[in-house]
């Protein structure tokens, strides 16, 4: 067992770190303050190959492993949580299911432009009445000749409106079991922006990751080609759950990056800030807090990397992903809260990055499965 990174992963980290420091960090505060989607950064990431890192070269990707992609989200999130989630939702939630379940035609048509960053991807499962209880979804799809007709709405969709390709989960039939209980059968669909009957509702005003574009999607007799069903009809729910397993590793990496970024700033600040005639880093209270945070972040990183490696080597990695996301998200929240405390009054002021980081951290405990859902997944596996 070897915990050190090989040379190619080390060089990839250096690349992501250089890019994040040079291109992303200078925009992070402004993007948050103005709630602006950083399109110029996405264009630069496309050029640098960041939009298709774990995608095989035959589909226009970089041909790297999931760990490299995870390190990219981690490094971006150290300086900007918004940029981290743009890449994560695009890669894990849109490209990955098409690569896993798509036909060869779908891969050629959709994965290639997504992996090169020419197009941006999104994933739509959540509905106003169906969050953790995804079975409560209402959006329906009915086959009409050569087209599926979608009706319903999806909410809290990351990369909403700015994306070009959407994976949408909808009910395609309702069946009754032997006891007469009704069961919704879901299917997954690939929907292009501009499909007739597909529009956008309100933009959400969020606490954190404010540069990320979060929209409601509306389908009113939205017509898409019959061949745009993704995977077998009726298999939409397992497809969505498997997709979220991958997505959770991306969010875990985002959380990890936020925690690491906050700790970096705390180290720099506590060495500079003087109270009672000496730097606050010279106080044992500060030292112990820094030590606890560093140990916890290291533990989170190991879980996140372990999950990324599991994704490369295993068919099923739900538990690894759930543990990584649970621990990294709670680490991000705990570390950013502690770092704001170390900054004192300045930590509460928007001029300092750590205030933004604390707001950005909170969502990692909620989206792509709350911490409670992760505990359900982990305990479910323990008790089965």
């Amino acid at each position, binding site marked *: 067992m070897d915990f050190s990174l090989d*040379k*190619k992963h080390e*060089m*990839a980290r250096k*690349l992501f770190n*250089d*890019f994040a420091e040079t291109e992303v960090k200078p925009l992070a505060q402004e993007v948050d303050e103005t709630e602006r989607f950083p399109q110029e950064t996405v264009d630069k990431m496309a*050029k*640098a*190959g*960041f939009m298709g*890192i774990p995608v095989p*070269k035959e589909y226009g*990707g*970089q*041909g*790297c492993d999931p760990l*490299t992609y995870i390190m*990219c989200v981690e490094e971006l999130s150290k300086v900007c949580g918004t940029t981290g989630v743009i890449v994560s939702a695009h890669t894990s939630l849109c490209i990955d299911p098409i690569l896993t379940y798509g036909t060869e035609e779908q891969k050629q048509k959709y994965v290639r432009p997504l992996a090169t960053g020419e197009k941006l991807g999104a994933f739509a499962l959540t509905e106003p009445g169906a969050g953790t209880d995804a079975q409560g979804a209402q959006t329906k799809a009915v086959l009409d000749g050569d087209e599926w007709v979608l009706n319903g709405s999806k909410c809290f969709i990351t990369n909403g409106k700015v994306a070009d390709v959407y994976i949408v989960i909808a009910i395609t039939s309702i069946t009754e079991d032997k006891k007469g209980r009704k069961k919704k059968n879901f299917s997954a669909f690939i929907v292009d922006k501009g499909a007739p009957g597909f529009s956008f509702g309100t933009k959400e005003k969020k606490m954190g990751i404010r540069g990320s574009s979060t929209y409601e999607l509306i389908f009113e007799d939205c017509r898409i080609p019959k061949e745009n069903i993704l995977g077998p009809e009726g298999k939409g729910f397992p497809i969505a759950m498997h997709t979220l397993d991958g997505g959770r590793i991306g969010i875990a990496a985002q959380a990890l990056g936020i925690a690491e970024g906050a700790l970096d700033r705390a180290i720099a600040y506590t060495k500079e800030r003087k109270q009672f005639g000496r730097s606050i880093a010279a106080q044992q209270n500060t030292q112990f807090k820094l030590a606890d945070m560093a140990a916890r972040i290291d533990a989170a990183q190991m879980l996140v990397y372990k999950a990324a490696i599991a994704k490369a080597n295993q068919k099923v990695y739900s538990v690894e992903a759930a543990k990584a996301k649970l621990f990294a998200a709670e680490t991000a929240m705990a570390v950013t809260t502690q770092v704001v405390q170390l900054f004192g009054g300045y930590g509460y002021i928007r001029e300092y990055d750590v205030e933004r980081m604390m707001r950005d951290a909170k969502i990692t405990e909620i989206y792509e499965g709350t911490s409670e859902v992760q505990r359900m997944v982990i305990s479910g596996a323990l008790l089965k």
Partner: protein
Amino acid sequence: MKIVVCIKQVPDTKGGVKFNPDGTLDRAGMLAIMNPDDKAGLEAALRIKDETGAEVTVVTMGLPKADDVLREAMAMGADKAILVTDRVLGGADTWATSTTIAGALRNIDYDLIITGRQAIDGDTAQVGPQIAEHLGIPVISYAADIKVEGDSIIVKRQYEDRYHELKAKMPCLVTALSELNVPRYMTPGGIFDAYDKEVTVWGRKDLKDVDDGDIGLAGSPTKIAKASDKVRKGAGEKVVLDPTESVAYIMGKLKERHVI
């Protein structure tokens, strides 16, 4: 078209320079990076490759760990890499270095050789022009722009206050300024490919037409008495006066400091 780019792994001097007690650079104590002028030269070569499909080979002379900058160059888009490394080449000054690199380049075909203007560790700006001299090809230094036109290149040669536009028939050598361009990022896939490729490693025996007396420390006529970091100049004093008053002011200052 075949382009060779000479690159060097240098200590990053951005955060200041560290010295060993004997006055030599503490290379282990500083981060190693690709020399900025060389990186601009590589980017210029890669842009020519993007346009014309040229083949780009990177060459470096250094310790085995200089392999890192060759991989970085390949991750940016260079096709081949050659590392010239041998114990007997250590301690080389600009003369011994340029002799060695020229000896290596005699083994390969090239139309254009690009080097950086100077390395941020030695700051001599001598190795590029010396390589051209050894190989008997023209050199254009301080390139701020490089264009290929048929069998020639057109280069903007930068001066402090102006530039010359020069045309030279290939093969020739150009030394590049870091201001030439903004180098591209490596790509993640490029990094993976770079570590799957082979780096050609050459030693003393692979150098063509090179005398033993012209390499390594023994073949280096330069003797370093002392090395020091750049000393920052003060902000200076700015005065606005008419010409007559200016002359009097300057003369006064020179006398005050006993310069005249």
